[in-house]
């Protein structure tokens, strides 16, 4: 138990710090790196929550895929504009106040809820169960997701390519 607590706090600190880095750093490129860190931290959270399969998915898709795409995008736009993209923030105080208010609002609901007693034991292997579910009852939904990804790709391609 104590290991988990220590792990949680460590990951929590890293995650929050990395998240803050994402939104505060003036350099966009650094921001992406901070995001990668945050995603990795999240992955660790998944581990703490006994979800190793998601650990993998997240690591590959997010930390790998997403970050790569973003970096590409940044480089593409930088190449076009011919200078490194730096970004500033607007209305930081307003944003902070509003974000904090939303946080308070959410936490307000949270504290009103009694938490569950503890973690129930897993009776199945999550990875296997997920696999079975995805090819079983959730196959249709998975198809749908496939359609979504294809269409998103098609749309992204249509937009990103230059028509002669």
């Amino acid at each position, binding site marked *: 138990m104590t290991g988990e607590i220590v792990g949680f706090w460590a990951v929590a600190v890293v995650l929050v710090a990395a998240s803050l880095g994402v939104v505060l750093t003036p350099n966009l490129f650094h921001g992406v790196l901070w995001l990668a860190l945050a995603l990795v931290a999240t992955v660790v959270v998944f581990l703490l929550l006994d979800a190793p399969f998601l650990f993998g998915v997240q690591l590959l898709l997010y930390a790998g895929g997403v970050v790569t795409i973003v970096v590409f995008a940044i480089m593409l736009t930088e190449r076009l504009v011919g200078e490194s993209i730096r970004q500033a923030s607007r209305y930081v105080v307003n944003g902070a106040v509003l974000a904090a208010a939303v946080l308070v609002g*959410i936490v307000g*609901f*949270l504290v*009103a*809820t009694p938490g569950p007693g503890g973690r129930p034991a897993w009776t199945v292997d999550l990875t296997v169960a997920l696999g079975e579910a995805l090819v079983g*009852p*959730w196959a*249709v*939904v998975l198809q*749908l*997701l496939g*359609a*979504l990804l294809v*269409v*998103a790709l*098609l*749309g*992204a391609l*249509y*937009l990103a390519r230059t*028509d002669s």
Partner: protein
Amino acid sequence: MSGLGPFALELGLGALLVAVFVAGLLARGDDRRPIAWLATLGVLALLAVALLLEPAGPALGGRFVQDGLALFVKRLFLTATFIGLLAGISLPERAFARRAAEYHVLVLASLLGMLVLASARDLIVLFVAFELMSIPLYVLAGFRKSEGEAVEASLKFFLVGSVSSAVMAYGLSFVYGAVGSTDLGAVARALDGDHPLLQLGLLLALVGFLFKVAAFPFHMWVPDTYEAGPTPFVAWLSVAPKAAGFVALFRVYFEGTGAHAAAWVPIAAALATVTMLTGNLMAIPQQNAKRLLAYSGIAQIGYMLVGVAAASASGTAMVLFYLVAYVFGNMGAFLVVEALARAEGSEAISAFRGLAQRSPLLALAMLLFLLSLGGIPFVAGFWAKLYVFWAAAEQGLYWLVLLGAILTVVALFYYLVVARKMYIEPPDRPGRVPLSPTLALSVLLCALGVVLLGLYPKPVVMAALRVAAPLF
């Protein structure tokens, strides 16, 4: 294959999607309009099928239902899509001719999302369908990608949409967490206890729906997107996804909740109030016809929210009827704007000057649409407004009805401004407004819908009442 019965429409649409996609891969040359015809006629065929279909039992372990409600709105989606696609066939720009496949794949994919959304009884299905519906729309809004306005609109739409779906997903996560199941039936049952997390989740999830239907203050993407998007697409965008948003809202918030639905009355009433108010007020100073219609559309959503605020079977039914009326009235109005824009090269309201003397029938059609949107007797919109007010009055929300009815007057102000341009002011130039046959046909369909529903709303009202009744 009896197990696939409930999915007939989705499967058909999937096949059509694949066909269009493949046709796009095979097509060569600059004019690929046959693909557009393929998609349009395919949708028409699906509509015919949909009209013949009977409600079927649940599938996927209850995660997917093809009940009366689903069928009702699917017919509506298909009708709207057919009209929208029909009107879009004759879009003059090269992009639409050459990229017909992309355009139609995106539209059909979004339509697929709507169809599934209408049947979703599971949080995950709901979310996936919701995103499937939304993501193509971002691209479509910027389909004229060489135009600064279009891509700007696309970006705004995307950013606001993504944030909203993030909030929605966040909310759905709480819903799931509070219930321990993604099944909406379980969600409804869980309402029996006092559960702040569930409340939180439902509230945050509401943001996504409200974004989709464009209620204040989640509406802000609407005017910009409408103004810059291709008009036939905007016409469709202004109705179909909104209808989908409403039906999903009913599924989540009303279906099976019984007396708990009443909890949403104050919130829906407040939203209805601000949405009607701001939509109508902001429409007044508009000079661009599409922007005007965008704000008026927001106001229309406000009226539908009045029906939602009734939180009753009749309220739900009346919103459904409202949606039907809205599809014809709003699409029709947009399509007339499109016709004028093609002829005059302007989407400003001033382009309507003297239309009654140039093209009396087109002007009459526009007048009918405006009157329908304004809620004037003998066109569809009147019954729509009346019925939602009725439903609200049944629940004792007289103040809301009064407010709504008074704001109708404000709405009529800007509708009449357009009517004035058409009927009272002299034309700037002589001659009929040229109209391509497909566009004319789609306008005609809308006009017919508005008039027939206005004269004889009974079948649709009865159907709406019938399909809404099991929700409560």
